[in-house]
């Protein structure tokens, strides 16, 4: 237990010291949302319609921005060696690191939604729905990304792999996330179906992500 806690604390501390942590995350999404009107014009109705999509893209970007360093940083300074040697099962380690990453990049977004909703003037129900989809979906993005990050560390051409193999995997999550959010915001389709699929996708990636990442790290040995 101590070691899990220690790893979580340390990764979050690093995220906060290096990336600025949750407040910065919120600020980031605030800015991303502010960008939209400049691109799309002040048409609020339109903004409301694609607001959720933008939020989701912001989420994807945010998780990508920090993800490629998830293992690379530890690899470059030798920490990864010690992590591999530890008594903690590698899958757990990966999961914990992913969790720390999500807490510092995914969660802030969820927290920020109410603020952003104000700018896109979504009514409370819609806002809650969007926040809910993000709450369920962003961890999936992180887990999928973790897989890519692990590959990126072990293979010389990692970056490429990350892009070509992993990003496409995020598309279904994005699609159903946006679909569900939209259903809640503008309708007419019901919120339920896409949301359940989103949940399913997340669950799957929770399982696959850490295991795949751990496998990649192990076989990347040397």
């Amino acid at each position, binding site marked *: 237990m101590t070691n899990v806690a220690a790893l979580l604390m340390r990764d979050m501390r690093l995220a906060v*010291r290096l990336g*600025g942590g949750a*407040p*910065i995350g919120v*600020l980031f999404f*605030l*800015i991303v949302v*502010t960008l939209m*009107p*400049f691109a799309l*014009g*002040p048409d*609020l109705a339109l*903004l409301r319609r694609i607001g959720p999509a933008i939020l989701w893209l912001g989420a994807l970007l945010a998780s990508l921005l920090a993800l490629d360093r998830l293992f690379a940083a530890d690899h470059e300074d030798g920490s990864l060696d010690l992590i591999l040697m530890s008594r903690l099962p590698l899958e757990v380690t990966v999961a914990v690191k992913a969790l720390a990453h999500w807490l510092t990049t995914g969660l802030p977004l969820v927290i920020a939604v109410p603020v952003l909703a*104000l*700018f896109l*003037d979504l009514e409370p129900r819609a806002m809650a729905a969007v926040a809910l989809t993000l709450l369920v979906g962003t961890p999936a993005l992180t887990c999928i990304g973790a897989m890519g990050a692990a590959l990126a560390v072990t293979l010389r051409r990692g970056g490429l792999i990350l892009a070509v193999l992993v990003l496409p995997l995020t598309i279904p999550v994005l699609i159903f996330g946006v679909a569900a959010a939209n259903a809640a915001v503008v309708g007419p389709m019901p919120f339920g179906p896409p949301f359940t699929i989103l949940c399913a996708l997340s669950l799957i990636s929770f399982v696959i992500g850490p295991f795949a990442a751990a496998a990649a790290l192990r076989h990347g040995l040397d």
Partner: protein
Amino acid sequence: MTIIDLANPSRFLAFTARVLPWLVAATVCAFAVGLYLAALAPDDYQQGATVKIMFIHVPNAWLAMFCWTVMTVAALGTLVWRHPLADVAAKAAAPLGAAFTFLCLLTGSLWGRPMWGTYWVWDGRLTSVLVLFLMYLGVLALWRTVEDPSRAARAVAILTLVGAINLPIIKFSVDWWATLHQPASVLRLGGPTIHRSILVPLLVMGLAFMLLFLTLHLAAMRNEILRRRVRTLRLMQAQAGA
């Protein structure tokens, strides 16, 4: 490092100690007069009583931009003359600027509801001010996340200088884009266009807020200097402890 760098801050501390009381007094008086005049000011024929919001909205708007200007000057001080007080001034101004910008946004949107029928529109003026607010937050984040003050100061300085391009954008956004927001009617070439009965209280309130800013800024700078002194002593202590 040298005695001079210390001398300046400490001489500055003495200076603030002397000036602050007077500033406080002046501020209070200015607000008293300003609020009194504002209360007496006649309603606007089209905006009704809501024009009273202007008496805080506009001064805050001016201060929002003024604070960044102060920071910009301080930035030059930091980069060109490497003057420690410049760092302090910049750091002290940031939270104040953020607060005033926030008030400008808030009062503005409160005014917008009755006037335009909505709290928020994405027009040039409003959005550029929002951007200003975001940049204030960015600067604050930078100050907060970097432990070494002089290092942070230089970074913030560069950011501030580049960010200054936003000021003209804010000022002239009303002229560049078709917006709901009024064009300048006080700070404009060829003199103000508002009726005196409103202009006078507005200017007095403006003065009051300006005094308020000066007071708070001096006080904040004093705190900052003390904070750095504490930091230095802490370092000394760590070294002594070693």
